[in-house]
């Protein structure tokens, strides 16, 4: 944990900043010149303490061998706290300095700044105990104090505006406004301190708004748990811009229902979260039990959150990389049966366009930000012309216009190997992460699945063999389905779909050789499709070797 020196210095710093606040308050109230000098010299001392603490933090991080994650979090939190304490100290000096511009000292006394000082002093006192004891309730109270300070600021701001409208004491009122503005910014720093304390308790960065969203979602779902009883595991990781956390009660008692130990809390982009909610509802109508149960959802102006069932089991990815071959075969067979069942149940006689090329174009910016050279320019080799990527895409896009899937099915939309769960006890396949589900071309799911296999960063021969046979079986299953359904353009749409997934997946792949391989495969497929444009599409033959590595 924190070294003694670090703890002591941080305690000193809290004491000094608390004194600085006291002195600043007195100075604003009485305006004695000597008080200002004291404030200034204490600021130097606070700055020094900050430097000492920072050095301590960095030395501990770099010199301690075998440092645990918890210790690292603690040090990071300490550092953030000290930086923000110093800022509060600076704001004190700035607020006090404003008094020199005030001609009429009495005018300041019409406004209630004392409350803000009282709130700051009260919560600063709690910083060290919270850091020591990990009291979540008090950490949250520190975070929420900022709201109180903001409200007081707003009240006084309105009062100042009203006074300004009278047209008197304009200069003095503006100075008063500046003073309040500094006090309001002290509140922002206090919030940063509170969030740093949450980090040291929870072991992860969490914003107070997310915390409130979680609390409201838990309450709305009728759970008995208060936040103090809830335990978080770290962020499960998501590329979709939503934060995901696993939630369970401290004592391991079920929070939701007897068979459920924990649930998943997702918070983030409102559109995505709401899409996921609607899709979960849709899936539970079509295929009850295939997707997690939805317990509750919550919306604010910009964000939304969901509390959904946590599905016990392992991801398909984990099984394909670590499971034994017999188990993997069982799971694959189940997966195929589930996919076929969904396709048959949700099939609608409505032609549907997947727009694979448009999907590439929409993600081109993200691809190029990771791999700036993944775009072919026009080249000539003797009399042979190499078509640039943009032209290739534009031409394939025109071709794709005429290549709608003959029917639609309800697709997963992000059928990655880590969005498929196998529940061994119930012997069933389940799906997660469904915000992209929609009526679509089944080939979209198949191609995403195949490329998510392909891009597993494993290069040992036996694992690669495994990935290759999983790909082959999935492809054959889908192809047989296509034949049965009389889907004549299956192979060319699959070529475009694979080109799309190969190309867009490079944005997640830093290994340059591997991502370059996917980039080349994507272009190869697009060129093949283009070369076939004058022949009937049902004669297009997918070069299947492209799916294997």
């Amino acid at each position: 944990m924190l070294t003694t020196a670090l703890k002591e210095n941080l305690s000193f710093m809290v004491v000094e900043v608390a004194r600085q606040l006291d002195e600043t308050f007195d100075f604003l109230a009485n305006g004695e010149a000597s008080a200002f000098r004291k404030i200034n010299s204490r600021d130097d001392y606070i700055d020094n303490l900050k430097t000492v603490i920072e050095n301590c933090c960095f030395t501990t991080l770099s010199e301690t061998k075998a440092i645990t994650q918890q210790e690292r979090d603690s040090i990071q939190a300490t550092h953030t706290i000290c930086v923000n304490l110093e800022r509060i100290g600076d704001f004190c000096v700035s607020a006090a300095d404003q008094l020199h511009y005030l001609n009429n000292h009495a005018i300041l006394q019409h406004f209630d700044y004392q409350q803000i000082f009282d709130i700051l002093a009260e919560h600063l006192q709690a910083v060290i105990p919270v850091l020591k004891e990990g009291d979540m309730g008090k950490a949250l109270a520190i975070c929420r104090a900022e709201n109180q300070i903001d409200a007081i600021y707003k009240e006084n701001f309105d009062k100042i505006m009203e006074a300004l409208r009278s047209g008197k004491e304009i200069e003095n009122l503006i100075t008063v406004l500046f003073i309040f503005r500094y006090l309001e910014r002290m509140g922002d720093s206090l919030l940063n301190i509170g969030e740093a304390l949450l980090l040291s308790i929870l072991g992860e960065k969490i914003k107070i708004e997310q915390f409130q969203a979680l609390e409201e979602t838990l309450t709305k779902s009728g759970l008995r748990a208060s936040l103090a009883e809830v335990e978080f595991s770290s962020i499960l990781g998501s590329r979709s811009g939503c934060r995901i956390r696993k939630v369970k009660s401290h004592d391991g008692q079920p929070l939701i229902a007897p068979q459920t130990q924990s649930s998943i809390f997702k918070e983030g982009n409102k559109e995505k979260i709401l899409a996921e909610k609607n899709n979960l509802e849709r899936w539970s109508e079509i295929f009850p039990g295939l997707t997690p149960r939805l317990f509750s959802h919550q919306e604010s102006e910009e964000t939304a959150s969901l509390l959904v069932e946590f599905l016990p089991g392992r991801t398909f990815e984990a099984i394909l990389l670590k499971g034994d071959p017999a188990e993997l075969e069982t799971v694959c067979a189940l997966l195929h049966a589930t996919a076929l069942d969904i396709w048959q149940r949700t099939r609608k006689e409505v032609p549907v366009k997947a727009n694979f090329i448009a999907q590439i174009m929409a993600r081109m910016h993200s691809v190029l930000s990771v791999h700036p050279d993944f775009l072919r320019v026009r080249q000539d080799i003797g009399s042979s012309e190499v078509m640039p990527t943009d032209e290739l895409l534009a031409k394939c896009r025109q071709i794709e216009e005429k290549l709608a899937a003959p029917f639609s099915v309800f697709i997963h939309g992000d059928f990655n190997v880590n969005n498929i769960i196998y529940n061994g006890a119930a012997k069933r396949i389940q799906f997660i992460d469904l915000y992209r589900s929609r009526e679509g071309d089944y080939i979209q799911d198949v191609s995403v699945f195949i490329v998510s296999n392909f891009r597993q960063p494993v290069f040992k021969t036996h694992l690669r063999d495994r990935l290759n046979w999983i790909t082959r079986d999935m492809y054959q299953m889908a192809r047989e389905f296509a034949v049965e359904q009389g889907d004549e353009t299956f192979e060319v749409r699959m070529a475009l779909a694979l080109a799309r997934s190969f190309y867009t997946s490079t944005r997640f792949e830093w290994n340059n050789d591997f991502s370059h391989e996917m980039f080349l495969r994507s272009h190869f497929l697009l060129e093949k499709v283009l070369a076939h444009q004058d022949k009937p599409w049902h004669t297009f033959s997918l070069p299947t070797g492209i799916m294997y590595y």
Partner: protein
Amino acid sequence: MSTKKFDYESLQDAHSIKTYLVSLIDSIEKGRIILKSNGEEMAMRVDDLMKFSVQAKKKDGQNKLSIKLSWSEIKPVIKEERASSMSIGS
């Protein structure tokens, strides 16, 4: 001296590889190989004599065949001075 470079890498099947090779053979026959990238041209005059090498490697199931042509555009300077005109100390 300025350096010009041309770089192209792709995945091809036997048919399209043939197209590229044939267009290179044509260029060699015509005496000029022209390579363009984004409008920028690089022309190479084919020489009477060029180094031609073929290298192949097979390792762990990976195959590699490199065909390389290299030559110099700077001709060796042949000095007009002849050995006979040099004075040989007696």
